[in-house]
């Protein structure tokens, strides 16, 4: 996958993810509707490839107004990855030379790798994660489970310890998947299944679409480096 193809694919997937999020905001207040209707229109131009790169530049500018509106990201980590992707893509499009384009786009791919590795690292140094207690607490009293029935998983310590170690080890070894195209594709399929599970159990649907939208960047980086 060459740089242009990967960049274009990431742009389209990100624009579709942002359209999905924006549609959800249309049931909000008038100020939200104005911001997100504008975003839907700009994302449409990105998908159609009209006037590139200016719709991306406008989306990056609009993201600052949205950050100001909510005094931060609306939905934490998923919105942060969306912002990172949007700004890296915009900078890559505006960069005056190929190395700078690659640098901006490669930074996005590197952050995707770090999102797994660091997340696994901060968990494995915590004894509560190693014992399964942290995941038990997530199900027992955190705000994330989408139904009361799911809280009963807190009573299955062996299952939770197994799930904790599976998540931590997968996140930590994720960079090793870069050694070949088949291993990377396998790792991305597993990662997508992990995000799908989080979307189902904790209602984190934005993570699923946003992380998937960045996958072309890591496929490009693997091809570029290996």
């Amino acid at each position, binding site marked *: 996958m060459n740089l242009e193809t990967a960049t274009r694919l990431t742009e389209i997937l990100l624009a579709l993810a942002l359209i999905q999020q924006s549609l959800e905001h249309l049931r909000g207040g008038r100020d939200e509707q104005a911001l997100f209707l504008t975003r839907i229109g700009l994302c449409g131009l990105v998908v159609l490839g009209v006037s590139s790169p200016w719709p991306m530049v406008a989306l990056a500018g609009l993201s600052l107004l949205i950050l100001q509106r909510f005094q931060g990201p609306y939905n934490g980590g998923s919105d942060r990855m969306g912002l*990172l992707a949007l*700004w890296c893509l915009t900078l890559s499009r505006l960069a005056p030379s190929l190395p700078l384009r690659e640098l901006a786009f490669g930074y996005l791919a590197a952050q995707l790798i770090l999102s797994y590795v660091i997340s696994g690292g901060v968990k494995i140094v915590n004894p509560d994660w190693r014992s399964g207690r942290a995941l038990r607490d997530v199900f027992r009293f*955190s705000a994330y489970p989408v139904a009361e029935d799911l809280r009963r998983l807190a009573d299955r310590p062996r299952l939770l310890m197994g799930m904790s170690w599976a998540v931590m080890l997968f996140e930590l070894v994720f960079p090793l998947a870069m050694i070949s195209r088949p291993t990377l594709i396998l790792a991305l399929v597993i990662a997508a299944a992990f995000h799908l599970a989080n979307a189902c159990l904790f209602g984190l649907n934005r993570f699923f679409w946003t992380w998937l939208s960045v996958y072309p960047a890591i496929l490009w980086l693997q091809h570029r480096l290996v």
Partner: protein
Amino acid sequence: MFKPLALLAPALIPSWNFFDVIAPSPRLEYALCASAGGKPGPWQIFRPLPRRVSPLTMLGRLLWNPRWNETLFLVSCAERLVQNPTAHSEDEIFRRLAADLARQPDAGASKPWLSFRLVFLSLEGDDLVETELFRAQPRRLADIVAR
């Protein structure tokens, strides 16, 4: 204050420390009262969880999940209110509470003042403990711009 670049920086240089520690978790509760100085009550949990969500509904929420995402935004506002209180977080919670109440017939008819409190859940040993860390001054429902 217009500070979007300060808000953007954590996205451009992210920490990625998801769920590193499981912190006390906020619950948003609201109550109506007859007057600004009246005793609010009874306290009600805002959007209590359903008993069960079917797999089909879970998959459907991949594409359409505005209510849950709004609830998670209010969790963020609750955490901000305790860590770094701002009028913005309090206003957002009032607005969205009022919008939900506006969909209920007769809500606030006899008790036109709205208040909310933040109760944080944590574990002490094996016991789940509730601690109230914030209580908002009541506001008249009619004065809250719900949407």
